[in-house]
């Protein structure tokens, strides 16, 4: 696993000083300054606070894309399902994949089809295994 500085250099090399890349550096600073056991659930709200924005925008989404989907790979995406009773269920990644493939989400408790599941899916992020091991 690369150190925080090496990760930041890599990002700088690939994306330069674009606003999204700069935000990703701030997020890396945050992730490496906090013990990973305190980073079990990072919502969009949390990340907005880390980068000092009132709400997500294209630069934050770019930063998240860099940190999640590129080879930098310091964050992983997970999903929470919040049902009409406000009960929360973390969704297994296999179920999530199947949901995306079929367009159908099944409530883990009732077994009923949830039609507008995107209104109930809350993405959140956790440090990747490699970052956790490095930390």
């Amino acid at each position, binding site marked *: 696993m690369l150190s925080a500085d090496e990760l930041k250099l890599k990002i700088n090399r690939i994306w330069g000083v674009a606003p999204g890349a700069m935000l990703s550096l701030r997020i890396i600073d945050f992730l490496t300054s906090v*013990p990973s*056991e*305190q980073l*079990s*659930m990072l919502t969009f709200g949390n990340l907005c606070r880390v980068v000092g924005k009132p709400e997500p925008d294209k630069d934050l989404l770019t930063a998240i894309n860099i940190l999640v989907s590129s080879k930098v790979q310091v964050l992983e995406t*997970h999903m*929470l399902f919040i049902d*009409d*009773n*406000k009960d*929360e*269920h*973390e969704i297994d990644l296999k179920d999530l994949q*199947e949901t995306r493939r*079929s367009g*159908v989400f*099944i*409530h*883990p*408790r*009732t*077994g*009923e*089809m949830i039609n507008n599941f995107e209104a109930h899916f809350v993405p959140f992020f956790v440090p990747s295994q490699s970052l956790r091991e490095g930390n």
Partner: protein
Amino acid sequence: MTVLNTEVIPDVAALAHALRKRMPWAPAQKALQAHGLPRGRGWDLTVAKLVTPGTLAPDQIVAMQQLLVDHELCGEKLIRLYQMDAELKATLIRQLRSIDIQPNVFTACYPTGLSDAEIEENNSFPLQIAAIVEADGGLAVVFSTIRGLIFREEVDPDSLPPAAREALSYYDQVLGVRQERRQTFEVVYLPYEGDLVDIRVDYPDGMLRAAAQTAHAQVRQAFNEFVGCEALSTPLNLFHLISSMYEAPNEGTVVELAFGTTTASTKYEKMRRSLLCLRQEVYHRAGKQALAAPIEPFRVSIQWLVSLTDDVYSRPELSLQSTQMARDSEAPTLFDAVIRNTTGDRDYNFIRGRLEHFLAAITTAETLESMDVVG
């Protein structure tokens, strides 16, 4: 005693419908998978698959029936535990094994149960014995009745007509009370080994606890009348298990906890992610460390990972739910334990075993304490 007739192939549609009515989807999936039964996405597709002619071989249909029996014995229950003298228990087991159950409307349709139409047509069904079955190391006396279960559910205002939505817009939350008539299965389980007897009543999500507690009292009375003696009297007090199970560091995953502090606050904590334990959660640990006096839990929910087969696991959950008031009283009591997300006897008995273990530890500690006092 009831012996299921495996020569007559049960009605698959009725079995599937019965399973769907009582089993939450997550454990149902696991149970179907563990038994090698086909599944689809959600109940609709799963039932459709199961009832399609030719899908299930006869032995699979029998397996499905057993799955239903197991869930009626072990799934979504509020339980109480009773101590019973070994000799009395052995005597009762002998008697119960040789009894011919009086045929009634429930024995005729066990384990599938009455259809919705039959439930609707008839007004009253007193609590009666539906079956007496061998159940993994013990004997289960299965009572059944039709209960008007009251469910309290949140109502989504967006699902209401505009006028109703407008009228209720002042409220932050709208709750609805719904009554539903359902056939319930209440079980008195007498194990061959050990001295603990369970009463387990159906406790589906949303059901009022008071209704389940009433059911307990009715079943206890019915059982005692049936066997002709006060076999079950006072349930065991489970209150002290709340602390002892919470404090055991490797005892499952604590997913919910409520406790009072000596700094005069009440805390409710819940883990939002599966497989993460509140015991290790940083905020929880830091809060505890800041206090000189220990926290006083009065509510705990613990999950375990239980292997059903080599590659199928269930996540059953035990909840011990008391109140701050009970905790503050001189002799707090809690008689109920809620067991959810079990697939059948394997994971139910796992939790039961944990309860027994901690009860035994408390009894030993109390015995040692009294010896110290005497000494």
